[in-house]
């Protein structure tokens, strides 16, 4: 008796083109979020931000200059350039001058850009500081920023609508 073998067609290769499309979209989205601009609105590593109910918008024509205050160091700019320690910020005039010059330079660049491209961008100082540091350091940075013609100063916080209730529970 003659055996009849069923003929199987070659299995079609798995099409991964659509999957690739999805991954490309996700990749573009992630790269955008990780960009330098977005870093300004993310929580810096190893920093405990204070919590607030208030969440204000950054002014639409504001260009931010970032200052990060850690308990052990001060970092300036999006590039996180080291600018000494908190103790130096208070005691060392040279450290304050370095920060002041950086801020002034950034503010001047924004003004020059405004003149060149006929825009009205405003320099904004964005302070990201650990909630455990003392206000004397914040005062120092605010003074330097105000001196370097930063009229708008923002503090980064974590939004928490219930922090007041939580603090009440702590007291009780």
């Amino acid at each position: 008796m003659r055996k009849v073998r069923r003929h199987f067609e070659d299995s079609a290769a798995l099409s991964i083109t659509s999957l690739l499309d999805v991954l490309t979209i996700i990749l573009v989205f992630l790269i955008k979020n990780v960009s330098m601009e977005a870093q300004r609105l993310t929580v810096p590593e190893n920093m405990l931000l204070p919590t607030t109910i208030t969440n204000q918008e950054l002014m639409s024509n504001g260009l931010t200059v970032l200052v990060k205050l850690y308990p052990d160091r001060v970092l300036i700019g999006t590039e996180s350039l080291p600018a000494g320690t908190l103790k130096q910020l208070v005691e060392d005039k040279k450290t304050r001058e370095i920060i002041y010059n950086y801020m002034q330079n950034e503010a001047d660049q924004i003004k020059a850009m405004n003149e060149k491209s006929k825009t009205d961008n405003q320099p904004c100082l964005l302070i990201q500081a650990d909630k455990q540091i003392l206000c004397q350091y914040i005062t120092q940075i605010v003074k330097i920023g105000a001196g370097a013609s930063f009229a708008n100063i923002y503090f980064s916080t974590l939004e928490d609508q219930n922090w007041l209730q939580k603090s009440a529970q702590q007291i009780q």
Partner: protein
Amino acid sequence: MAYRPSEGRNQKNQSPPVSPDLVPIMNLFMALIPFLLMLIVISQVALVALNFSASGGGGGGGEGGGGGETAKEIKVIVMASEGNQIFPGFEIREPGSGPITIKNADNQGSFNFIALNTTLGNIKARNQQLGDITIVVYPDVLYGTLIQTIDLCKQNGFPNVIYKPATVSYGSGG
């Protein structure tokens, strides 16, 4: 005379179009995406603003805000340590009435924000048109406490917060 076979008969030898090999690209993507996901910190970051241009006030060491007629200046003094006439807690000064003190319940820096919130609400109820408030902060107060005090002022209808250090601070920035 023999003719050569027509071109159309040789189609059997042509290979089907080869699709590009996407597997290495997929591998690259699979490595990149988890890496980028790790970099993103998913949290709701908020901003609290201090505006130094609005009423000419505000700012560390700057003179008090507001021009115009003699505006009522409400001060919230934030203190963290015990000393001569100071205590850990808040003191609220409103012109025309005595200072209101809100002392900390313990020595562990637990500020009574609930009482401050209530007091600010009462002050706002008495001064509906007032939008400015001055926060005077001692150097040893924690930044977190300062921000939460500013937060409560803004929540109680004082959008223009003027920030002042309590003591004459160190040299000028530049």
